[in-house]
């Protein structure tokens, strides 16, 4: 995509074309690195019937919580919905929402596989557990493994610290977490950042996500849910 088109002025504009029924990856872990401003914009837009992939399922009204509260989400792939995921838990208990629980590292690896053009892989994680149910199992080099499929989505909503105007990204401390891999696994990747700098200002050695993985950039500050 032509670089000049990536910078979007508002979070509302950044999500204006997200259709009902789409799939979205959400970055963030432990209160850090969540694209909270994009999520709020999606809540305002009211997009329905979403399939989301996210390590957790919100913290109260925060993070993805508001989307559950608004009944915008149909299904979830998650490693740890979390004790703070009040609206998710209510809807899950009521049978209103589909959940696929995935080990956290396998969630990472499945998204990485998607981004890397690897359709599937064999993993020892989950062998002999509920996670293996319905999955092909075999023995490779003497080790029991199960088949895991690549996992991507129509969109990735991620959070980074600084972007340049091309879309090169750097993160801040443990707010990096799921964001770089999700940038590679979303067909359209939308990033909210605290700051945008001119092209050339970021150190080429220190760029974590090269701009080839980024489609839209929006500057948005200050939402965190602890």
């Amino acid at each position: 995509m032509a670089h000049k088109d990536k910078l979007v002025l508002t979070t509302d504009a950044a999500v204006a074309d997200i259709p009902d029924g789409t799939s979205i990856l959400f970055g963030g872990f432990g209160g850090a690195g969540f694209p909270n401003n994009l999520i709020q914009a999606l809540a305002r837009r009211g997009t329905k019937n979403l399939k989301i992939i996210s390590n957790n399922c919100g913290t109260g009204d925060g993070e993805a919580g508001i989307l559950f509260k608004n009944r915008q989400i149909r299904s979830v792939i998650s490693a740890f919905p979390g004790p703070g995921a009040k609206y998710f838990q209510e809807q899950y208990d009521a049978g209103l929402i589909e959940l696929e629980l995935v080990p956290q590292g396998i969630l990472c690896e499945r998204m990485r596989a998607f981004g890397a053009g690897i359709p599937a892989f064999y993993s020892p994680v989950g062998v002999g557990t509920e996670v293996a149910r319905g999955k092909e199992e075999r023995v490779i080099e003497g080790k029991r493994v199960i088949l895991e499929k690549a996992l991507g989505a129509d969109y990735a909503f991620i959070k980074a610290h600084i972007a340049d105007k091309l879309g090169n990204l750097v993160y801040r401390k443990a707010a990096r977490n799921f964001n770089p891999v999700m940038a590679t696994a979303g067909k359209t990747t939308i990033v909210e950042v605290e700051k945008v700098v001119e092209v050339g200002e970021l150190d080429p050695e220190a760029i974590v996500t090269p701009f080839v993985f980024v489609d839209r950039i929006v500057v948005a500050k200050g939402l965190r849910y602890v």
Partner: protein
Amino acid sequence: MSNPRLTREQIAARAALELPDGACVNLGWGIPNLTAAYVPTGRRAYFHSENGILGMGPRAKSGEEDFDLVDAMKVPVTLVPGASFFSQVDAHVMTRGGHLDVCILGGLQVSEKGDLANWRVPGAKGAGGIGGAMDISVGAQRLIVTMEHNAKDGSAKVVKQCTYPLTAIECVSTIITDLALIDVTPQGLLLREVAPGFSPEEVQAATEAKLSWSGKIPEMLV
């Protein structure tokens, strides 16, 4: 059994003695997380967090928290010199790939084969959550489980076969409880140490799985 069992802190302190100098270590929620405070003087341990940190230091002081620098339990932490940040993907390259020297997790049940159940109580309300425990259990060079020896209702947690949903099979190396330190070996569970004042027979009585031991069993250093 008139002697008190060990406290959670004492279990953690005993577990900390298992950390070799320079070890890279992942600690799970609960008792495992207490271990960091008990690394023996003269040894250094480098704590790993699955959200992308190697080299976590103590909890951040009040007023000095940086909420972009949190551990896997969402607690603001600090860094030690030599620490690094990386992605969640790379954090699990470390766990699953067998690059961490020791991992310490909590347990609901451990079987005599070393199967671990620690993520869900059957019949519990809610969706539950796996987190990083499965990747950590499968990949750990050495997996130590720290837990109370018996559940609140008195039932054994060191069992012949886990009845709770499994985290991973044949993954546990050592079990450290408020009653004993037990190694999982190809020959079954080997009682290596008992809590001060307890006899091997008393520990066996509190254990569903069969323990083996020979000679005099030393007391746990606490």
